């Protein structure tokens, strides 16, 4: 399990970094094309938006851990170990249930979006506009992966108790803020 999660992280990290770098470069290209070439590319803006959508859901599916999330844990942290176990189980179960409940209708919507294509960005191989179904498909992947992750988490909590490390990890850290090593 540990091994698989490390492998996923190792594959997902360069993909996420590449998408963000591509967005950054596209933005610079947009400014460059307007001021230096005097002939702005029409597609830069939409490409950045596509990358933004993918970055958000790709990272939330594969990279954003429980402790990276915005959480409000006043109640959680004041409970006893038993209470914390129950609360963490409720959280995980609710996420799994909610994602699965909305999954099929959402897939139906995403599939419907094949009707509509990007307005400026083209597939470089075919020269055709890309159906929004392709672009929005990352949300379906996100739903499945998140449901799966929290299902596994549910099992792990049942076996090993409340995952306090996710909430308290930072208390032991020398720096209050989470900054990458230099």
């Amino acid at each position, binding site marked *: 399990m540990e091994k698989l999660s490390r492998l996923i992280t190792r594959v997902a990290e360069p993909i996420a970094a590449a998408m963000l770098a591509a967005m950054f470069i596209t933005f610079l290209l947009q400014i460059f094309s307007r001021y230096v070439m005097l*002939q702005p590319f029409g597609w830069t803006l939409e490409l950045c938006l596509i990358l933004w959508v993918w970055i958000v859901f790709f990272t939330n599916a594969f990279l954003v851990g429980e402790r990276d999330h915005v959480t409000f844990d006043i109640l959680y942290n004041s409970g006893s170990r038993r209470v914390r176990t129950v609360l963490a189980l409720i959280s995980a179960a609710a996420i799994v249930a909610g994602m699965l409940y909305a999954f099929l209708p959402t897939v139906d919507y995403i599939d419907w979006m094949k009707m*509509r294509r990007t307005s*400026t960005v083209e597939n470089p191989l075919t020269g055709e506009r890309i159906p929004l179904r392709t672009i929005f498909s990352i949300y379906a992947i996100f739903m499945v992966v998140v449901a799966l992750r929290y299902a596994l988490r549910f099992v792990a909590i049942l076996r090993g108790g409340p995952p306090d490390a996710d909430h308290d990890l930072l208390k032991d850290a020398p720096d209050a803020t989470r900054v990458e090593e230099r």
Partner: protein
Amino acid sequence: QDKVELRMSMAGSETDQRAVAMAEVFGPAVSDFADYKPSYNATLFAQGTELEAISRGNLEMSITSAQELAQFFPEFSIFTAGYVLQDADHQVAVFNDELFDPFKARAEDDLGVKLLAPMYLGRRHVNLRQCRDELDVKTPADLEGVNLRMPGTDAWQFLGKALGASPTPMSFSEVYTALSTGAVDGQDNPLPTVVDAKFYEVTCQIALTSHLVDWNFIAISKAVFDGLTEEQQAAVTEAAVAAADAGRAAQLQKEEELGAFIEENGVEIYEPDVAAFRDQVQKMYLESDFANDWPEGVLEAVNALGN
């Protein structure tokens, strides 16, 4: 019996001519059997997502554009092209002519969206921050290298290129600041928009190119429409046409009156060589991929309905 709920989502504000016409004419005219519920500023559905919302049964009405429809059905791009529609009356004639029936049918069959009436948005002109002594616009050649803000879709960007400018995509809310700082040189919109968005504060000239006589359509869910009685259907259609007529009259009057106001605020308004613009724009469209999507004979039929 409960009234039919007609939720309308639109991107314009409450004071927009389209909004006013719908609220004052359409809403009351159907109030016997329907509850007209407008929401403004794209707060219910984001601009550009209304058609899919109607299609998927999440919304009943919207005011949609030919550009939006062209995102689904490329043939609609003929009505987004420069110098095709000539004026407000021409728009009504085209909408009511049989040449437009296949377009209506396509939207109904493939999207479940019924187009009720055409709304007049106005003539779009080139509005620049440079003063006329610095940049005098006579022909498309004068716009070379001019950063003209156009909406972000390819149809708009192509129109900007056809005018001879360098089109720049930018969201509408950024345009005022971009004009005041010079991030863009100009924008293209009808005169009422120039006033509403205060562009006259940050620009110096308007060249009356009239390159696009812009229009929108009052659209309703086909499923909802089909669920009405025959009398109710007639009433809805009639109310939409009446609202469109009222909005058109108000917008035309505004266009007439606002020129003087804009000039009082130090913006010079003048007519360039419109024929030169029309020739170049039409030529570029006919050579483009867009024209491939236009059904045979439609352009000629549209032209025949004009002057």
